[in-house]
Every structure is written in C-alpha cells, then in structure tokens.
C-alpha cells in the first residue's frame, strides 16, 4: 500500500523536576502512537491540550527527539538518520507553526526568512532566489513587494501566510501544521483555512494537521485521529467520525463543541473532572476515570486497538472487532486520484 509517512509506537517521555530540587518525574507526553499518512492525504490529530498531539508532530520531524518508536518517511527510518541525512530529509518535511508572532524572526525581512531554506538546500543565485521568493509570496496571497518588510509590519493572518510560504519553499511532500489557525481571528481563520486546503491540493502535499478545534479539523482533513493523554483513542475517516463517533471520549468531545446555531439545543455529555496529569497516567484505559460508560475491565486493562468497521480503529473495551493487522490505518486505494474538495467536505 502507498504510504508517505508511517509512525509506529512513537513514545516521548521527558523528565521534569518537581519543585525545589525534588526528584525528577517522568512525563508521558506521547505514549505509543501509531498512524500512517498517504500521499495527498490530510490526517488530523485532534485532542485537548496536553494530549501529546503537538509533541507527536514535532517528534515526527525530529524537532524533538522521540524516546522510542519508528518513523518511516518514504521508506527511510527518520529516527535513524545522521545529522546530514536529517538535514536533507528536512527538504521534504516541513512545518507550519501556531504562533504567527513567535514563528518569524522579528529581525529578518520576509525575503530573508523565505530564502533561508533555499540557502540551506539549493545552490541558487541571488536573482533566482528572489524569483522563487516572489513566486511563493504570490502563491500564498501576498504581494511580491512585501518581501522587504519585517514581520511586525504584517497582520497575524499575513504572517501565517508567510509561515506557510516558508514551509512550501522547498516543495515538501509532507507538511505538519501545528495548530496553524488557532491563534487567528475568526474572519482571518477562514482565509488561512481555505489557503491551506487550496495549497495542499495544488502541490499534492500530505498534511499532518494538528488541532484542538474539531470544527476546523472537520473542514480540512480526510482522516482524523483523536488523542487522549498521549494515545490515539480513535481513528476514522472524517465523515464517519463526526457522524458516528465510537469512543466515549470522541462522543463527549463532539457533544461539547459549541455550534453557532441557537436553535440546535443538544444534550451535552459533560465530562467530569480534568484531564489527568501525564506524569501519572491512570492505569487501565486512560480515559476510564472520566468515562460515563466505563466498565470494570476498563480500570484494569488497557484496551487494544480494534477495528469495528472498515477504516475505523478504536481503543475501547466497548467494541469488538479484529485487532488491526500490520497496517495501522487504511489509506485510499492505490492509484486513487487526490481527493477533490467536494469529496473532502461531503
């Protein structure tokens, strides 16, 4: 089957110091995450803060070093690459950040920021570089004249366009979007979301889209993985997930998302309490202390991934179904054409 990226059993633990010279504690930020992304596919990781979704994204790019696991990108194990190999690999895997203010060096002009990837990876003349920068600025909807400006001379949305341009400068195959629109205002958010979708299609990019916003995820992605406390609890094609969520956590989450429609009064599933600390995750199913449908077994046993239906994986004792085999996730049939926007949003 055709996979661009495949992540197996990714683990990231780190140590924090508790208080004043106290003993270090181990944070289980990501605890055995597996998924795969096909070419041209948008895969979303969604979850609440602290669930490990961003850590997963960074670890895939080795912007933080994972503790364990394997990341295969086009058949090569990213985690085994030497620094030079990694540097070369970076051409093909890029990232767009959340913070439109923090992600641009305030002391570099747009041009300098955008030409940096080219300087690192391609031998081009200054004129060629300028050309490429101008081209890319147009692609993301900015004026080529803007290249001489500094970040603080742009609005948040424009900055995010620059961030996207930087990620696309090297024509990568995979882009990780780490909450790329969550810092933006409503009206601007729509602009950027549309841009992301447009560019993803135009350049044939695979997108790992990380977000806490279920509405946004629904709009951009083909498949969604729901994360809770360092684990993926449910994976499904976007439409099925929203229409028929299986995992109790997914269900609760979806019911809690406010909807801009005052007529629709739904029953909300209110989850009790807070997300437990990733320092001491609960035994058994990590969700069981808050789960309205928890069984006795949930307290004891960590549920293994099940496949209750084709293309769906859920980690919950409520569901039977075969455990997924070698393939962690289904991907579009080989040879399938890239999804059109209509497909995406149906």
């Amino acid at each position, binding site marked *: 089957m055709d996979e661009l990226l495949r992540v197996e059993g990714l683990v990231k633990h780190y140590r924090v110091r508790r208080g004043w010279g106290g003993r270090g504690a181990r944070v289980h930020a990501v605890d055995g995450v597996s998924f795969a992304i096909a070419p041209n596919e948008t895969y979303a990781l969604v979850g609440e803060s602290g669930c490990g979704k961003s850590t997963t994204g960074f670890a895939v790019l080795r912007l933080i070093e994972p503790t364990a696991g394997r990341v295969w990108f086009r058949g090569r194990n990213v985690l085994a690459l030497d620094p030079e190999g990694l540097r070369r690999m970076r051409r093909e895997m890029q990232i767009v950040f959340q913070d439109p203010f923090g992600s641009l060096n305030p002391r570099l002009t747009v041009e300098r920021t955008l030409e940096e990837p080219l300087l690192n990876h391609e031998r081009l003349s200054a004129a060629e570089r300028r050309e490429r920068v101008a081209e890319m600025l147009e692609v993301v909807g900015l004026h080529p004249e803007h290249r001489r400006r500094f970040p603080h001379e742009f609005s948040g949305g424009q900055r995010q366009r620059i961030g996207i341009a930087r990620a696309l400068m090297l024509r990568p195959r995979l882009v990780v979007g780490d909450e790329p629109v969550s810092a933006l205002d*409503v009206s601007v958010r729509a602009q950027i979301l549309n841009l992301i979708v447009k560019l993803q299609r135009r350049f044939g990019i695979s997108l790992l889209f990380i977000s806490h916003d279920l509405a946004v995820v629904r709009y951009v992605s083909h498949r969604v993985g729901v994360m809770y406390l360092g684990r993926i609890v449910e994976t499904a094609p976007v439409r099925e997930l929203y229409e028929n969520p299986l995992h109790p956590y997914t269900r609760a989450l979806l019911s809690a998302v406010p909807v801009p429609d005052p007529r629709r009064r739904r029953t909300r599933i209110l989850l009790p309490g807070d997300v437990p600390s990733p320092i001491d995750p609960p035994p058994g199913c990590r969700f069981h202390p808050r789960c309205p449908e928890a069984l006795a077994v949930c307290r004891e046993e960590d549920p293994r991934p099940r496949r209750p239906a084709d293309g769906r994986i859920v980690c919950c004792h409520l569901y039977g179904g075969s455990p997924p085999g070698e393939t962690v996730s289904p991907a579009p049939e080989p040879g399938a054409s890239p999804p059109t926007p209509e497909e995406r949003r149906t």
Partner: protein
Amino acid sequence: MPLLSIRGLKIHFRTPQGTGVAVDGVSLDVAAGEVVGLVGESGCGKSVLALSILRLLPVPPALFAGGEIRFEGRDLLRADPRDILALRGNRISMIFQEPMTALNPVFTIGDQLAEVYRVHRGQSRSQALASAARMLGRVGVPAPERRVREYPFQLSGGMRQRVMIAIALACRPALLLADEPTTALDVSIQAQILDLMLSLNAELHTAILLITHDLAVVAEVTRRVAVMYTGRLVEEAPTAALFETPLHPYTRGLLASIPRADASFQTESLNEIPGVVPSAFALPPGCHFAPRCPRAAEICRREAPRLEELLPGHRVACWRPVDG
C-alpha cells in the same frame, strides 16, 4: 429600567503614536438576570468596554471621551471612586480570559476568595475562609476545604476558572462581566464552565455580559447578542434572530466563515472576509467595514451609519443591510 445601560460611550487611547479610538459611541443595555453576548474580533474594543464599566481601565492612557454608563440608575463614570470600590466584586463582578494569570500566584485560593467576603461582607478572617470553602464547593471545586489552602499553580485551568467564578459570584452580584471566560480552556472544560455560568445565572439571577470572539459560544449561551467592529456596535439582536437573519454584512460574513463540527452541517467552502481589520489609529471614514464590505456603496465610504432598529429588537448600523 435596565440593570446596566451604556449610552454613547466613547473611549480613546493616548499613546506616543497618536490617539486611538477604542470605543466609539456604543450604546447597550443589559436587563436584570439577562445573558447578553458581546461579540467581536480581537481589537474591536469589547474588552475595553467591559473594563470601563468597572472603571478598571488605566486612565491615562485611556480617556473617556463621552457617553455614560448607568448601573441601577447610577452614573458609574462620574461616581465617587469609593462608591465604585463598593460596587466592584460586590454588585458587579468580572472574570477574565486567563485564569492562569488572573489569580495571584503567591496567595492561596482561600485567601484570594476570602478577601471578597472580608471587604464586602465585613467577615472575620475565619468566617471568610469558611465562606470561601462553601463557595468553592458551590462552583464545583472538589474537596474545597483542602483547596482553600492551595495555590493557583496547584490547580488545573478549569479549576482556576471555577475559582475565578467563585470570587466573582461570592457576593451574588447583579451583573457578571465575563471577558472571554472560556477562550483559554479546552472544549470539554469550556462546556463545564459555560454550564456552570448558566446554572449560577439561573440560581442567583445574576445578569451576564459575555464577551467573546466565539460566535458558537454565544449561540449556545446567550439570549441577545451585540456585535462590535472597530469600536462600534454594528448589530444587536436576539440571538436566534441574529444567527438566522444577520442583517449586517460583517455579521453575515463572520457567520459564514466559521467551520462547524455538528454532524449534519455541511458547507461548500468557508466564506472569507477580505482584507484586515483597520488599525485603531487609521480608521477609514464612513463605515469602518466599508473597505472590506462586498456591498459597500459610495455613501458607506463617506458617512458612518447609525444603529437603527430594522426589525423588532434587531438593530443594525448599515446603509445597505442584507435583506432579511
């Protein structure tokens, strides 16, 4: 008589860069026990408006350039500072966006909550602490007797916001100003907090002015909504009406630009409002939204429209409103 009545409020900011307009002639009423939403994008002046009610804006650089704010008939802008002190946290309370930073990191929860009882109810230290624990229990903080001795950093974000709500509602205020109370919280926690606010509204009959950028939250919680853009009120209507038949092109554009998570909802593509919000120092003449408005006409660029009641209870400031 409404509980809170704002008339023609104008607030300017004096900075070295020049004078900026933060609030430009806003009029808004909140009735007793009512839940009203005030919506707008960042920088539209909604927080400034909320802060000005309690006179919490630093003056200078802020400057009250006109209008009045009446609370239970009293003009707050001209009231004696001592009277304002007596109102704050007592008749009018406020909660903020960041429960992390809104609580003082070096005092216990109990201390910060008890302060309200000591100041406004004249309770002794131990009485106040007991009241504090009771109130914490009421807002759903588990083990309140233990929590009163803890510090803010020992609590999760949701718990902190509950504490903030406890502080705000301790004296059963007539009005709660909630400035983006759930923006920093996760979805599931947001649901909890909104729920809590609504139930306390029902229980204590406290009116709520909910200030947020999130239309979905407004839709779920409020009865009436006011929409702000660059310091002006552009539309005000009962919530259902606003969402169903938005009259102002801005409101309409905004609504169309939100992706939705509800199962049955489908949209072809998100609407985009072109351009960016103008700076408070360089506002366009006429209608501030005109440069971005698909329906803008000559008059829009020349003259600012006034807020007028087009439908019953539905007011809009637009020369060319979208047809109902």
